[in-house]
């Protein structure tokens, strides 16, 4: 209504001015008949008002549409009445919608192709890594150890790329099932054992076998790997332990990974979950991509887990992954029944 009034008031003003001018011309010419003039003015105003009301009724939908923000592209396909103006308006919108969709589709398919390419490429790169891995297996000298270290770095880098690109098609790529926290943590520790040893940092595992949570094993393993490699990287040379524990907090199950390393400066803490943010520590240490914690947060969001991070400079960092209620084990169920 307001938009309609705003749109039409110049017309109304001009019309009134015109009417007054008309009466003025007649009266200046000496013709003065108040009752007839009032009647004529009334008729003119009546038809003008009638025109505006009609106009409003037939175009109301369009005016309403124009005065509300668009929330989704699909709203552009709605129709707004039958008048020539409404139809033109609808057609214009539809045309716009089509053009946007076309471009969107083009970009989506480009993105998809790119993702497929990345994933295929990562898998292809695993062949040379396998060859190196096999060739090094029977070698025990320092040089081989050093090459092994580099191969590990390549593996970690590739893994990051693979998971980053998988995140794009997460909806088709996860399976929620009961996961044993202890076994995932053990797997993560085993995958990183060379990294632990090389940095002289040793994990302390305080995760009871009873903790089982609803999650996706593969994604969870990736999350733990990221947090663990951070913990080791920022502990090296300062502390020699990383504690991994699981416990209950209210309804939730918490998996906590605590290191006693250099910690994160307070001005950086807020931003550690942002992509490509490396902060002060990232500048001091090699191999910080700024993607690890961002990916952890993104994956957690999709799996409906929460992530918390506490840190104090010089004391260390604690990362917690919070899961909704624990999955009861068979023994629990039996105990409940009896």
């Amino acid at each position: 209504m307001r938009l309609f009034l705003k749109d039409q008031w110049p017309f109304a003003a001009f019309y009134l001015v015109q009417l007054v001018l008309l009466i003025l011309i007649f009266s200046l010419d000496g013709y003065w008949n108040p009752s007839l003039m009032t009647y004529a003015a009334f008729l003119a105003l009546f038809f003008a008002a009638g025109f505006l009301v009609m106009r409003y009724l037939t175009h109301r939908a369009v005016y309403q549409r124009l005065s509300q923000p668009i929330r989704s592209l699909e709203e552009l396909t709605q129709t707004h009445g039958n008048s020539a103006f409404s139809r033109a308006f609808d057609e214009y919108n539809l045309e716009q919608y089509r053009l946007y969709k076309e471009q969107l589709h083009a970009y989506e398919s480009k993105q998809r192709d790119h993702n497929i390419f990345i994933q295929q490429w990562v898998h292809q790169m695993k062949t040379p890594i396998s060859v190196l891995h096999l060739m090094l297996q029977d070698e025990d000298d320092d040089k081989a150890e050093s090459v092994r270290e580099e191969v590990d770095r390549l593996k970690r880098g590739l893994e990051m790329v693979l998971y980053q690109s998988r995140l794009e098609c997460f909806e088709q790529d996860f399976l929620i099932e009961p996961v044993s926290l202890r076994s995932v943590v053990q797997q993560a520790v085993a995958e990183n054992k060379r990294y632990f040893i090389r940095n002289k940092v040793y994990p302390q595992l305080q995760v009871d076998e009873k903790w089982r949570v609803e999650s996706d094993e593969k994604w969870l393993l990736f999350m733990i790997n990221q947090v663990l490699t951070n913990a080791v990287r920022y502990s090296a040379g300062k502390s020699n332990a990383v504690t991994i524990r699981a416990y209950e907090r209210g309804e939730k199950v918490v998996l906590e990974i605590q290191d006693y390393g250099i910690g994160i400066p307070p001005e950086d803490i807020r931003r550690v979950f942002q992509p490509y943010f490396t902060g002060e520590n990232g500048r001091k240490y090699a191999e910080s991509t700024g993607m690890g914690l961002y990916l952890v947060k993104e994956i957690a969001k999709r799996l409906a887990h929460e992530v918390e991070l506490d840190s104090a400079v010089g004391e260390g960092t604690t990362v917690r992954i919070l899961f909704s209620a624990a999955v009861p084990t068979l023994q629990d169920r039996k105990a409940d029944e009896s």
Partner: protein
Amino acid sequence: MSTIMIVEDDPKIKQLLQNQLEKYGFRVVNVEQFDRVMSVFAEARPDLVLLDVNLPKYDGFYWCRQIRQHSNCPILFISARESKMDQVMALENGADDYITKPFDYDVVLAKIRSQLRRAYGLYASPDVERTVEVAGLKLFMERLELNWNEQRVELSKKEALLLEALMKQHPRVVSRERLLEKLWDEQFVDENTLNVYITRVRGKLKDIGLEGAVETVRGAGYRLKAAWEEL
């Protein structure tokens, strides 16, 4: 002697696998032309097939289904794809197990042996035991036994792994990191635990009359010293 057919398009992986398997007494048949998988299979009649998923022309799943029409022999997939979906696909196409790249020799060997055992019974697996020998000192990795000069001593799994590393590397030094890595499987091992194991191994060597055979090299690691050779 069991025959193993390797269908893998990367020549180096193929060669490395072949060498390793032959070392453990398997006969290995390779596929060179990837449109002739079935005729090689029919000719060689392998006891087990190692199959890569990504192959030129047809993929591993296709060949797995083809082989299944003729034979029930165990088929192990080797693939770079580690997702559950891919593993399920492999099993649904008739495979018996799935190994992801990059893999360890130990894992491949263990899986091959367990599949052979399941398919043909114990007798079929070639009993070439992993042994290491240095100047008459012989270590049996499966029996966990150490022999020297008619004397025998039993070892724990970790002690055997430690000795294996030292003996294989003889006479060079093995770093502490490398030893930690060897010992560290499900249970992680820290430096103190390594010291304990080293002491135990020294004790066992002493039991069979080899005192001072494990030498500490400061700042580097440990070395096996075959001082008994000169006796």
